[in-house]
């Protein structure tokens, strides 16, 4: 039996999550088929365990179109006689997977954080209650879909080569209908979704004029910048930077919280990060209970020192 993964690409380049899905699917011990749309270097997927790549090349799918992509995946599932599909939890995957689940009349479990406990029946561990707990869930439809939480499994290289074959789906006019009238995207910034490291500021920074050091710290680390909910609510920073339960989820390797006390809703949203560092002058701040490393001190003294030392560290290690 084979597992199908949807290996997402942006502007032709496969995303890191594509390789993570490949690593995950391979680790189940099954044969791995990957579907790509307008992606280059599909052979790269072989290094992470993909046996076969179904490569779709179609100008009409240049922009993200959930209806069309779910249709493509449905046809690939049928052609390859797939019973288990693994997708990611990227913004785009979250948009299209529910459509796919209905098309295939499939069982669907999202935010899966570990290898299946069993493949037959398919039993998985999901993060629920915004990372405050886990559910062990059994999927009992004929075809089942799981969405793997970003960065929950990581990358595992394997040996082998992927055979790439071209795949031409039949797409109806209605599936290809374009609704997008405008896209605005900052191209030079690390996004919270893709960042390995996130540097986040809270009310402890006292005002938007003090964000220079957060941005500098992020820039030294190649990190994305984020903020707590109160900071976005009072307009110091844009909503797109708000991380937490009602904001963006964070699942980076390193999360650095500066001047954030750590309200339960904030901690829930950033809990999936592997390593958490807190810098706060209040030793009673709840974030210290959730963090791996902490500095009790004035952010306005600690952060500039940290920037200076990190610059030296980066210079010595590059």
């Amino acid at each position, binding site marked *: 039996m084979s597992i199908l993964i949807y290996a997402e690409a942006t502007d032709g380049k496969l995303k890191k999550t594509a390789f993570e899905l490949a690593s995950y699917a391979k680790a189940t011990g099954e044969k791995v088929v990957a579907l790509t749309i307008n992606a280059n270097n599909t052979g790269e997927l072989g290094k992470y365990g993909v046996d076969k790549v179904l490569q779709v090349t179609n100008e009409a799918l240049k922009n*993200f179109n959930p209806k069309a992509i779910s249709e493509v995946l449905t046809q690939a599932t049928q052609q390859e006689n797939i019973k288990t599909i693994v997708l990611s939890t990227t913004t785009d995957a979250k948009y299209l997977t*529910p459509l796919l689940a209905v098309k295939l009349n499939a069982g669907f479990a999202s935010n899966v954080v570990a290898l299946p406990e069993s493949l037959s029946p398919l039993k998985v561990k999901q993060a629920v209650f915004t990372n405050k707990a886990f*559910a*062990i869930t059994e999927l009992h439809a004929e075809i089942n879909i799981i969405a793997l939480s970003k960065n929950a499994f990581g990358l595992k290289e394997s040996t082998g080569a992927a055979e790439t074959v071209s795949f031409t789906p039949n797409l109806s006019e209605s599936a290809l209908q374009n609704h997008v009238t405008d896209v*605005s995207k900052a191209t030079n910034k690390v996004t919270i979704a893709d960042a390995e490291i996130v540097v986040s500021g809270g009310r402890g920074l006292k005002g938007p004029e003090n964000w220079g050091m957060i941005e500098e710290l992020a820039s030294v680390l190649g990190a994305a910048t984020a903020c707590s909910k109160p900071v976005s609510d009072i307009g110091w920073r844009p909503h797109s930077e708000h991380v937490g339960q009602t904001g963006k989820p964070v699942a980076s390797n390193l999360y650095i919280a500066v001047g954030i006390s750590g309200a339960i809703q904030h901690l829930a949203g950033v809990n999936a990060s592997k390593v958490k560092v807190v810098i706060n002058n209040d030793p009673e701040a709840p974030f210290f209970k959730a963090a791996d490393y902490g500095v009790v*001190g004035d952010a306005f003294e600690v952060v500039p020192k*940290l920037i200076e030392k990190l610059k030296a560290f980066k210079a010595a290690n590059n």
Partner: protein
Amino acid sequence: MKILVFISHVPDTTSKINFTPDGKAFDTNGVQFVINPNDEFGLTRAMWFKEKQGAHVTVVNVGEATAEPTLRKALAIGADEAIRVNAKPTDGFFVAKQLAKVVSEGSYDLIIAGRESIDYNGGMVPGMVAEMLGYHFVNGCIGLEVDGNKATAIREIDGGKETLSFDLPLILGGQKGLVEEKDLKIPNMRGIMMARSKQLTVLDPTSDQAKTTIDHFEKPPAKAACKLVSPDNVDELIDLLHNEAKVI
């Protein structure tokens, strides 16, 4: 314009999450339930359409009688009527089936849901309902305008936003941005009084079955204590992040 808003009945965002001793069920003891925050942003946007464009707003929940106070709160905020499908919301597919039936019987122009509930975080119901009915759908919606039969929606994408245009009817999975936090309404006494006499229809569920079953719940393992580093020695922090945590 007729608007339907999906309302999930979820534990308050500050709740400590506990399970029954056998781990089989969520322990609701001492837990305060609220309108799912992502749904509340959508409901508040619906109230704006009611005030400015005369929309009629219905709220719907799939849940047991214990969810009715949450629906009454939505009525107190200003929704015109409520529907409860009388069933335990077992999984996303089951809930979507119930809601698809309500949508198909109501000729709504706009169906507003939250991008996900903060309890099971499935994020699947709005998209599933749209696909079941062949309706247009936008997820991660942070802005919405309606002009006649046309809706313009803004969706959040990684590192930016996308503007989309649809003919109604449209289903959307919304989030903060549809309205701001400060726009959220706390029901006033008049609203609460009026809500008591508004129509709340209880419907029987369809015979559809869930496609997934939660076997049991687990809590995350206890966390090791935070290692404290002196503010005068940030070199140690860098060393720990590099050599111990291996993240820089």
